[in-house]
């Protein structure tokens, strides 16, 4: 199981201290803005932040070219505007907090090691890819490959917590090594594919092929039905005590998890039998 106690502690953000970036012009040209990272904003003046590099399509520009910047020298960051085509916000961040007001583009918080990202809208694909620590909280929907590994890599997310209040796409937590992903809505197919260890909780519909090729780790479906691969076998029906700890923590973070789920019974399946078979899928059992 992943450790959640160290993962997220919400620090109320004082907005007066924060650096606020507002995208000047909506665009569908992809913007790579990995320089929107709290680590880089600390110790920088407003002009210093404005001169950080970014890419507008193939053109090398500065953050100041694309965003109006207010504030300086802070690891508290607010990003506003039509950000669906802005990629890599918070990539490799280790500290501070990024609040995205609206939808955001691909690779949000990839390789992140600490701090927190809150997205008030939807996030694009690959959010939290190869994440190692910290917390990503997405109020809307997440895209595909949430907390996943990039193509060809042996392991993906290696720590931290991702919470999605809406739905998430395909291959959530692919090749996950450690950490926790909670999706309150539905997830598409291949959640936890080839996961090594770690935990994925899904409140809505758990898509097909969950846990395909998983070695160890835990996938929990709070809905009382899930379609499993033939390479998982039924073990027992039980009340997992560890789950209580997790759910209480989620409660503490302000998430509403039904009490039935806290106290209830789960059917346990183990797999994937093509590999170690030490992974488990728990499906809430209403009976």
């Amino acid at each position, binding site marked *: 199981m992943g450790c959640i106690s160290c993962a997220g502690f919400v620090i109320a953000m004082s907005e007066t201290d924060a650096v606020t970036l507002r995208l000047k012009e909506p665009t569908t040209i992809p913007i790579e803005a990995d320089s929107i990272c709290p680590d880089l904003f600390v110790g920088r003046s407003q002009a210093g932040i404005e001169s950080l590099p970014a890419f507008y399509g193939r053109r090398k520009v500065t953050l100041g070219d694309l965003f109006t910047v207010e504030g300086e020298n802070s690891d508290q960051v607010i990003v506003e505007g039509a950000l669906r085509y802005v990629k890599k916000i918070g990539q490799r961040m280790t500290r501070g907090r990024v609040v995205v007001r609206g939808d955001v583009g691909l690779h949000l918080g990839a390789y992140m090691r600490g701090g927190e990202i809150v997205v008030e809208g939807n996030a694009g*694909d690959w959010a939290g890819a190869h994440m190692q620590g910290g917390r990503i909280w997405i109020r809307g929907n997440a*895209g*595909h*490959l949430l907390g996943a590994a990039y193509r060809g890599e042996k392991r993906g997310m290696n720590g931290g917590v991702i919470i999605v209040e809406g739905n998430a*796409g*395909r*291959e959530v937590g692919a090749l996950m090594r450690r950490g926790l992903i909670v999706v309150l809505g539905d997830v*598409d197919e291949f959640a936890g594919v080839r996961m090594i260890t770690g935990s994925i909780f899904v409140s809505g519909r758990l898509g097909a092929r969950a846990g395909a090729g998983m070695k160890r780790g835990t996938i929990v479906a709070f809905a009382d039905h899930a379609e499993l691969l033939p390479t998982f076998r039924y073990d027992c029906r039980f009340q997992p005590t560890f789950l209580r700890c997790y759910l209480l923590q989620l409660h503490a973070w302000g998430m509403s998890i039904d009490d039935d789920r806290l106290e209830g019974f789960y059917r346990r399946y183990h797999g994937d039998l093509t590999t170690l078979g030490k992974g488990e899928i728990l499906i809430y059992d209403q009976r």
Partner: protein
Amino acid sequence: MPKFILITGRTAGQGEALPKGKESEDYRQATECIEMNPVDRERLGLQAGQRVRVRTAFGEAVLVLREKELPEGMVFVPLGPGANALIGAETRGTGMPDSKGLEVEVEPLCG
């Protein structure tokens, strides 16, 4: 409205017509068609050679119905503009759209 599973793919006719040009009559004939098994066809009251409207969540196309040995509940459309009107552009992080296995509706073309 009964739903079918749509499979798209290459056919010999489509391959042979390709070099004749996308605007050739051969290419149009080879690609703007939909194959269905006789049981389904009769159930829908359709005739081979008839034009039908085919609809998915992503788009629709008007195609000529042909009879073919296929599992019940499955229709086949050769690769081409017709098939492309029916499949979506979402690739779910793979680059590859779901070109096979979509749900489709087939109805006779009125008028």
